[in-house]
């Protein structure tokens, strides 16, 4: 076993022992600035992704084992109850679906009347969630599809409830997703009720995002649903994002900021939906009653 060259030797006291520390500290500063400026770590991760994919697989095992154990421990009665509950849920969902079909037909008719282009539902495919980034303040997810499966940077990721985030880095067999809750992320949104547009900022927290720089005259109320506005072209319009929970006065007392709870639950489930960029078209288009500038 080779020894580490940078270990203290008994004969070497004083300034000499701190030189390697200085050397490595400077090296880390160089690396940090290179990474911040040119995305050095992204390049390294791209080339090493096949090497580390077993690690991701291994990291998912304890949780999978626990889930498997819990599933096996379910008693017959509990399973029957669950089946009954799922059956009821299916009925409810079917009912809602029927109502939706009626609405869709009505919507199509109205669109023809308005001579608008038919809105296509965006094509989406399910992808496996492979890992959630352990660093709590950075909200990154790893999905099990990459450039080999045709995933591209900037593709939009949703779950059954709402917007999750977008693909930030693509590797051959996997991809990293930056969540809307990440402190470095912002989404252009609009209030479904009033059509008011704003930018929604992540805060590095899974439970709330922030709608900053609101003035008291802006038409936003607690309980308002936010949808993506489609401005900027990155996110297709009409994807549900979250609901406005509470308002807070900024320290300067000029602006308000709203706390928004996201719909997407990144803490649950193992699958996400990846939207196909080619078919990015409105899902829901709320009628903007009065759009304020």
């Amino acid at each position, binding site marked *: 076993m080779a020894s580490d060259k940078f270990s203290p030797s008994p004969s070497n006291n004083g300034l000499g022992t701190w030189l390697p520390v200085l050397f490595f500290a400077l090296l880390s500063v160089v690396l940090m600035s290179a990474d911040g400026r040119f995305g050095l770590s992204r390049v390294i991760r791209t080339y090493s992704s096949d090497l580390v994919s077993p690690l991701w697989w291994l990291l998912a095992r304890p949780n999978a084992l626990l889930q498997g154990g819990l599933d096996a421990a379910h008693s017959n009665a509990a399973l029957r109850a669950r089946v009954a509950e799922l059956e009821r849920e299916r009925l409810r969902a079917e009912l809602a679906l029927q109502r939706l079909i009626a609405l869709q037909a009505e919507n199509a008719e109205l669109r023809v009347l308005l001579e608008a282009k038919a809105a296509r539902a965006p094509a989406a495919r399910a992808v496996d969630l492979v890992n959630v980034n*352990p660093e*709590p303040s950075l909200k990154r997810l790893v999905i099990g599809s990459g450039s080999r499966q045709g995933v591209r940077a900037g593709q939009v990721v949703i779950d059954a409830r709402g917007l999750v985030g977008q693909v930030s880095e693509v590797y051959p067999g996997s991809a990293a997703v930056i969540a809307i809750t990440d402190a470095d992320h912002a989404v252009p949104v609009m209030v479904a009720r009033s059509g008011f547009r704003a930018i929604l900022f992540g*805060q590095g927290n899974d439970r709330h995002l922030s709608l900053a720089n609101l003035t008291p005259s802006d038409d936003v109320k607690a309980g308002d649903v936010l949808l993506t506005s489609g401005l900027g072209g990155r996110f297709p319009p009409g994807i549900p994002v979250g609901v406005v929970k509470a308002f807070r006065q900024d320290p300067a007392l000029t602006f308000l900021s709203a706390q928004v709870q996201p719909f997407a639950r990144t803490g649950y489930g193992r699958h996400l939906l990846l939207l196909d960029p080619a078919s990015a078209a409105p899902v829901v288009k709320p009628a903007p009653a009065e759009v304020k500038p």
Partner: protein
Amino acid sequence: MIRRDTPGLRWSSLALAFFLMLLPLPEWLADLRPFLLAQVMVYWVLETPQHMGLGRAFLFGLLLDLATFSLLGEHALRLLLIAAVVQAFRNQFRFYPVWQQSLLLLAILYADLILLWLLRNMHDAAGPAPETWLAPVLAFLLWPWLYMLLDNLRLRSRSK
């Protein structure tokens, strides 16, 4: 006394600590995750400094940076400085009673968190979560057990 080296135990304990740093945890627990890799590294810096020096500390940090999507060099600098401080105080550190070692480690880990906060501020990223400031306390409580466990395993594999 002939000191026989135990590279198997060293690498496997470091690998396990690395793995535990990455293991997905429920959200309320993830913020409290102690810097376990640093603790295991400190043990090996104390016991076999010739095999666990600054170069390796830096290398482990770089690997952790790549795996956790943090800025390349961030964990590397943190582990490097922890290793450097422990190396500098090694002679005192080793002969302290174990609870006193815990206290010193607590101070080192808080200094490390302040460094992390500074680094994050410097490139305008979100600092450590409020709960993370409690993580060194967990590390403090964990150290005596970790120390005894690794010591036992090392003595056993050495005597074989």
